[in-house]
């Protein structure tokens, strides 16, 4: 009997051992698989463009200060001594710049003093040497990160980057016998048991770093016996497979160390930046002890929650380090007396959400979501956060202003409210500086710049006039008389927005005043097929039909396409590719993708110049002349647009430096009861007044192929002495009038011959 029992016991024991071995083998495979592959998901980060500053630059001080704050520069009362500090006074700001790391551009941080004179940068000098800085690049701003479901932020570091003080601090705080045990520390368990029994409370845990790693990496956090057993087995397996330093490195990168909003701060690398705004390798002893002290309760001991509690915990770690012999008396004394100084952080709402959505649609064609969420890519864009902020503010305030002025525009439900959209571009390069796709992203993520299709109305007219330039000139006469057209057997009677006595107008005046009748007359004379052919080249995605109403913009466009098309006038006839994504690098900084400006000639510089000249008249004398009263005193070309029943209000305005399109309307096509010049134009003006760094007050140089001539104001033909009123007008070289005005007394024979023999272009001053 006894023998049978013994045999059974031995058999059971053997079975348990075999089971244990098999289970351990299974766990070891799991451990190897987990640690062999990519150990962590690192979110990809989207960055804005760099910001360029130079002496003499106009600047919006308020937006600039916000920019510095967004870049993580914190205000100090002393002269900045460390990277990331700034000291602001009324006429200057001293900044200790962060290092700049961007594709094709790296720069070490240094202290710089920027002096202001009213709204201009007067001088930029190095604060250490006094040397003048002719051009300063501020680092790209972090806009957002693509997190996986775990939403962990982590900056990976190797064990060699971690200072010895931090390693000792962590070991002293959590596992002083790390290099002596083999995954489980029975002495540590007993010591913790003794301490806890002695104090009648759970003061110490007996878990080793390896056990903590096993728990965090493989197991769920519930406290059960089975989990504890698994944790113990895993710890032994990890210690058997990996070296101590490797285990420590994984631990230091894994450990949870705090919370920033909904994002968890993991690993000492990220914690170092989060708490002290510095790389881990530069941590001081007190800072290292602070971070080590956080492991036990990051949100309890955080310096952002309670500095005294944080200091107490830090000092306990320092004492533990001293007891272990890792720091001497002097170091201990100095560290104990150090203040707890943290960097501070800003919890910001989603930045440029519509721009990010637009960018994301491009990124997902290149990289699947699991790559974006985990491989730690850096994505550099064209976004200018100051312009973005200015655009968002201008739109918000502009729409509120409209609602206040007209109660009929007010809506209770958020999704039914008056809407608007803005896109800002640099026309020569195609850089997209800002996208505001709607009034409130939280209410509606629908991007009215890239996704909506709305009728442009009169904002389309420049494309009709461009088509006409082959055969017509700005001085050509057009009929502004009401005419009834028969379209598919039905009468169509276009009307001017306001009645006009002028039955015959010049092409320039027709565009300046946005006369519908004259524009339709022009379109008829040019040929609708030719206009459609022109718009095809501008890559409008909506197929157009050859109806006369096409000339008045009675078809739909995507606002992004319209803005891009206007860039042709602003950029010497070149159509730019609208660029938002510039570079993508991997987590090591290796360039994976690069996009440059891309241009294509669509029309001649001469034609583009003539259209810009006519659109400048729109601003100086036409439907956009109210811009002057809104502080826009520099040369601007632009076009207002208003559709039938006032469903859409547009203003597209540009200079050689910047182009912005503003649209206002209701998503459900309700009327806004007002025009582009009343609804959209003021928003454009507010935006431009907020970004003085983009205002050079320059205008276009007259290109070859453009001729200036004096013509009769009445006939549009060459002026002579008999013409009571004449004006200077510009023409394509091939379309210069050669006939004298027949309405007034004719010139003499000699003058005719003289004019006929003149063949050369001549430039005149603007």
């Amino acid at each position, binding site marked *: 009997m006894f023998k049978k029992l013994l045999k059974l016991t031995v058999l059971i024991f053997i079975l348990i051992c075999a089971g244990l071995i098999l289970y351990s083998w299974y766990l070891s495979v799991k451990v190897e698989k987990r640690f062999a592959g990519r150990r962590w998901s690192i979110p990809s980060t989207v960055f804005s463009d760099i910001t*360029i500053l*130079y*002496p*003499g*630059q106009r600047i919006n001080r308020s937006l600039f200060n916000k920019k510095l704050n967004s870049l993580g520069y914190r205000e100090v009362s002393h002269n900045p001594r460390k990277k990331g500090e700034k000291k602001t006074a009324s006429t200057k700001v001293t900044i200790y710049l962060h290092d700049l790391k961007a*594709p*094709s*551009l790296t720069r070490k941080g240094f202290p710089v003093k920027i002096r202001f004179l009213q709204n201009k940068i007067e001088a930029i000098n190095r604060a250490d040497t006094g040397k003048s800085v*002719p*051009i300063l690049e501020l680092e790209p701003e972090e806009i957002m990160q693509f997190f996986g479901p775990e939403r962990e932020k982590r900056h990976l570091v190797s064990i060699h980057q971690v200072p010895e003080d931090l390693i000792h601090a962590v070991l002293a705080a959590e596992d002083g016998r790390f290099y002596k045990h083999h995954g489980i520390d029975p002495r540590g368990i007993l010591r913790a048991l003794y301490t806890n029994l002695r104090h009648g409370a759970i003061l110490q845990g007996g878990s080793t770093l390896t056990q903590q790693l096993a728990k965090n990496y493989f197991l769920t956090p519930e406290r059960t016996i089975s989990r504890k057993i698994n944790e113990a087995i895993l710890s032994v397996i990890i210690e058997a497979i990996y070296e101590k330093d490797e285990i420590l490195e994984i631990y230091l990168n894994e450990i949870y160390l705090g919370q920033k909003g909904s994002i968890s701060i993991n690993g000492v690398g990220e914690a170092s930046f989060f708490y002290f705004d510095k790389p881990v390798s530069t941590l001081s002893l007190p800072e290292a002890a602070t971070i080590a002290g956080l492991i036990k309760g990051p949100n309890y001991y955080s310096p952002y929650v309670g500095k005294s509690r944080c200091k107490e915990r830090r000092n306990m770690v320092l004492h533990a380090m001293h007891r272990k012999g890792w720091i001497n008396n002097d170091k201990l004394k100095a560290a104990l007396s150090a203040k707890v100084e943290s960097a501070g952080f800003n919890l910001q709402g989603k930045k440029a959400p519509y721009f990010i959505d637009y960018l994301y649609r491009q990124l997902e064609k290149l990289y699947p979501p699991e790559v974006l969420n985990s491989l730690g890519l850096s994505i550099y864009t064209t976004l200018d956060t100051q312009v973005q902020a200015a655009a968002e503010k201008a739109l918000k305030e502009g729409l509120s202003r409209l609602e206040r002025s007209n109660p009929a525009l007010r809506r209770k439900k958020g999704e039914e409210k008056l809407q608007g959209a803005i896109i800002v571009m*640099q*026309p*020569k*390069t195609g*850089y997209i500086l800002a996208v505001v796709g709607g009034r409130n992203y939280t209410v509606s993520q629908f991007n009215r710049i890239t996704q909506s299709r709305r009728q442009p109305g009169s904002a389309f007219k420049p494309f009709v006039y461009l088509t006409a330039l082959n055969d017509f000139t700005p001085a050509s006469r057009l009929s502004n008389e009401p005419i009834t057209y028969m379209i598919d057997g039905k009468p169509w009677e276009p009307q001017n927005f306001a009645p006009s006595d002028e039955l015959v107008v010049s092409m320039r005046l027709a565009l300046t005043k946005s006369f519908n009748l004259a524009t339709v007359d022009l379109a008829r004379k040019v040929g609708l097929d030719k206009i459609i052919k022109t718009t095809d080249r501008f890559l409008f995605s909506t197929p157009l039909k050859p109806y006369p109403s096409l000339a008045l913009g009675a078809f739909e466009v995507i606002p992004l396409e319209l803005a891009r098309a206007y860039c042709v006038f602003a*950029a*010497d006839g*070149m159509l730019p590719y609208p660029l938002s994504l*510039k570079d993508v690098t991997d987590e090591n900084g290796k360039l994976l993708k*690069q996009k*440059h*400006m*891309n*241009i*294509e*000639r669509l029309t001649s*510089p001469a034609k583009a110049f003539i259209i810009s000249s006519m659109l400048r008249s729109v601003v100086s004398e036409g439907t956009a002349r109210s811009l002057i009263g809104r502080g826009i005193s520099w040369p601007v070309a632009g076009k207002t647009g208003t559709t039938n029943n006032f469903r859409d209000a547009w203003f597209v305005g540009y200079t*050689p*430096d910047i182009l912005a399109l503003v649209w206002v309307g209701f998503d459900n096509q309700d009327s806004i009861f007002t025009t582009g010049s009343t609804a959209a134009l003021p928003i454009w003006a507010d935006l431009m007044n907020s970004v003085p760094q983009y205002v*050079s007050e*320059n205008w*276009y*140089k007259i*290109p*070859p192929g453009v001729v200036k001539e004096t013509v009769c104001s009445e006939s549009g033909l060459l002026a002579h002495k008999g013409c009571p009123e004449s004006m200077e007008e510009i023409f394509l070289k091939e379309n210069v009038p050669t006939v004298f005005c027949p309405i007034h007394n004719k010139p003499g024979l000699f003058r005719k011959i003289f004019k006929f023999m003149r063949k050369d272009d001549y430039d005149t001053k603007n």
Partner: protein
Amino acid sequence: MTMTLKIKWLKILLAVALCLPAVGCMKPALTPEPPPSPESPSTPRVLASLQLTEQGKSLLNKGKPDAAIRALERAINLNPGSGENFYYLSQAWLMKEEAKQAKEFNNLAEIYLNEYPEWTVRIARQKDRIQELEK
């Protein structure tokens, strides 16, 4: 001074006077240095843009066309009317063997620099190189 000596000195002076225009007309030795920038740095924007143009040129000399394009794009954003930036952009795209973009930028350079003969020559030479690439 005797008459003969006076005449002799007059001849020397005359010879020197005649030579001066000839010296002035002598073609300068050909150097690889680019012609002077047509931009008069009269505005802070232009001055800042020139800094970036120089960055772009330096990067081209180092054989880094992509980095050069970046710098030159920034230069254009600051000073869209600079023909020099378009010229160097064309050069960068030529270095990348992309004839289409090289051609577009060279054409733009031609428009902006048509008043400067030294640049016109360089642009014409660049046009030839682009045409070679297109073949």
